[in-house]
């Protein structure tokens, strides 16, 4: 099945590029690999029929957030390859605990049984119309939507406050 191959391909790309994000010495490469990861995840979204979400994902992550990261890295001139102060001990500790976490989580979620299958054809679940209906419905996500605007305001004030030069 072609979708199967596509899944494995995208998964391979996303896992590999995620690993490269961690292991790249140069932060700029990390950013680029992260963008690649995001694209492959967007691919998964399309695969799962979440078309609108996939597009939004690319717009938000690849288009805005990662540009910001890249911008900061360029601005702070961090495209160096050295990373002082990393001890072997801390690397070993990180590897071991990361490994333990993965082991435990994989083992705990391995035996998932009794999952119900989708009720009906779900190709329209991820459409803009449907999402809009759920998002703006009276018993939907209206309140969180408004709350999120408070979140944006708070982060605006915070970012401006922290970045602004103090008036002396």
């Amino acid at each position, binding site marked *: 099945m072609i979708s199967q191959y596509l899944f494995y391909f995208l998964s391979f790309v996303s896992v590999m590029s995620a690993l490269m994000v961690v292991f790249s010495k140069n932060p700029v490469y990390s950013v680029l690999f992260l963008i690649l990861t995001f694209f492959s995840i967007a691919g998964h979204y399309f695969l799962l029929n979440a078309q609108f979400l996939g597009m939004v994902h690319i717009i938000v992550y690849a288009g805005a957030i990662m540009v*910001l990261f890249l911008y900061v890295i360029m*601005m702070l*001139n961090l495209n160096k390859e050295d990373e002082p102060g990393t001890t072997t001990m801390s690397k070993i500790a990180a590897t071991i605990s990361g490994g333990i976490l993965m082991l435990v989580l994989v083992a705990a979620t391995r035996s998932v049984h009794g999952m119900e299958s989708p009720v009906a054809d779900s*190709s329209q679940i991820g459409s803009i119309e449907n999402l*809009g209906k759920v998002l703006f419905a009276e018993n939907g996500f209206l309140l969180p939507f408004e709350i999120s605007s408070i979140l944006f305001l708070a982060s605006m004030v915070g970012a401006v406050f922290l970045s602004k030069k103090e008036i002396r």
Partner: protein
Amino acid sequence: MILLQSLNSSRDFLPILLMFIVAAGFVSFVMVVTQWLGPKHKSKVKADSFECGIEQIGNARSPFSIKYFLVAILFVLFDVEVIFMYPWAVNFKSLGAIGMFEMFTFIAFLLIGFFYILKKGALKWD
């Protein structure tokens, strides 16, 4: 075509996907071709920033202005806010007046934020 059908995905997105493929293909094509066509002479001297004989000190990019950064941050925030508007716009009719009110509240918050930013001088470039 077969591929897309097997994905069960809506055909509405076919043009967009094609556009992505074309764009990606074009970029990679150009990059490969330039590598292939262009002359390659690598040397230490050539990689230097300046070739006037004086050793370079420091880095060319050290001074920066925080203002530009703030603009970038605010762009991200407004960019994400916009994604909430697509679903609203598509459902504009069915949501009716209530939906209008909801979105206006949201936009009013945004405008207050925007006003705040303007007055704080966060967007001034000098």
